[in-house]
């Protein structure tokens, strides 16, 4: 297989990057939507809702994403529901991310000082208004660093979708290694590409943090 040059390796790896980015985007957007919904339900809190959500979080945090993907894709097939890899990946990545995001954001909301709730309540604001104008703007600022951290995790975790047939960056690396038999070179490149993506995310996050920063 001598005709596979270094350039071919890099080109093929880079061609798979959009899939990694696309899956990350799905996971983040889906996770954010579900995570926000769960966050609001949890703050609204009938106690039972909070309990159910904390079990949901435990379930998705306490089992490997690899198993979740496997069980969703093949399990749903077994009980007769036709899934495509994209559907299964969208579902799993969104639910998995939402568990981490909602837990993190809940922590941010809880850490807003009691006095902010008291002050906004004593001004006759409703719960909605308290959240929207007082609590969330502060929680949002607090949440930027941990959220960026989670996004980086999500990006790396998309590699697991190769188990249900996605040919994203990691899987492409595996395939190329099978051809070139040069794992150190190929996986080294794969790692560098992941690093470049994640590093840009962190840098962007830090910029965001600076932009929104305020001292108390």
């Amino acid at each position, binding site marked *: 297989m001598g005709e596979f040059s270094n350039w071919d390796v890099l080109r093929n790896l880079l061609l798979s990057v959009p899939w990694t980015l696309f899956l990350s985007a799905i996971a983040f957007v889906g996770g954010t939507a579900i995570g926000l919904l769960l966050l609001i339900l949890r703050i609204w809190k009938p106690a039972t809702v909070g309990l159910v959500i904390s079990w949901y979080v435990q379930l998705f945090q306490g089992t490997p994403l690899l198993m979740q993907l496997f069980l969703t894709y093949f399990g749903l097939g077994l009980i007769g529901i036709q899934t495509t890899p994209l559907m299964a990946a969208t579902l799993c990545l969104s639910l998995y991310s939402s568990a981490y995001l909602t837990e993190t954001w809940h922590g941010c909301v809880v850490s807003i*000082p009691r*006095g*902010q709730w*008291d*002050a*906004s*309540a*004593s*001004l*006759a*604001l*409703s*719960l909605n*208004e308290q959240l929207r*104008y*007082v609590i969330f*703007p*502060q929680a949002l*600022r607090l949440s930027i660093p941990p959220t960026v951290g989670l996004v980086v995790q999500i990006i790396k975790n998309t590699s697991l979708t190769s188990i249900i047939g996605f040919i994203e960056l990691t899987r492409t690396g595996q395939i190329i290694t099978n051809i070139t038999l040069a794992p150190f070179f190929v996986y080294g490149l794969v790692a560098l590409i992941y690093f470049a993506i994640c590093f840009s995310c962190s840098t962007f996050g830090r910029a965001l943090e600076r932009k929104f920063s*305020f*001292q*108390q």
Partner: protein
Amino acid sequence: MKAIPSQRLLEISNLHKWFGETEVLKGVSFNVDRSEVICIIGKSGSGKSTLLRCINGLEIFQSGEILVKDKPVRCNDAVVLRALRQNVGMVFQSFNLFPTMTAGKNIMLAPKLVKHKTAFECHEIAKKLLKRVGLEDKFDSFPNELSGGQQQRVAIARALAMNPEIILCDEITSALDPELVGEVLRVIEDLVKDGVTLILVTHEMHFAKKVSDRVIFMHNGKVHEMGAPNEIFLSPQTQELKSFLSMTESIR
């Protein structure tokens, strides 16, 4: 002095509150009339702040009754609370300004959301109130750019913006450096002159003596003694008040 017959604003009768197993308010009763200034004194843990927080529904209470302008305070009824809190403003020990908003925006928020005033009206209200507390040049300053005393004056202006009938002040000078206490107390004195009804939990005994119409001494979750400032400070009746006063004297 008061030509108009005094009007009852607040009636508290037989108020009981538990935190879990601990009873922190053990049957508190007293009334407040319009334009009265009440200072509540007592040791920490005597239930002063809790009592204050019950009045605007920040704490639930288990039995007894609080009437504000003849309407009962019901802690689990959002509609009742929203109406109540437009009548009862509160200023806190730790200022609790919203750090994401300028001083002006802090004041404008509630009139905009709750009273549905226009942006222009809110702006005018905020400007006027900042002037009243002597901070007309701080409209666009964020809380972290203000001193503690300035923050507390903005917090007072924020409470005034809802035009409440009663203002509750919960140890509003306790978190301040000594040299900043005076500027906050001067603002409160101005409110007293304007006839605002005030209930202050305070450790500033001299101030309490000077401004209040009545002083309430709380001890162990009860109103232990109540009376005109002269009676309370010059001829305390009970041993508990005597020892409390001598304790606060010796601190000075």
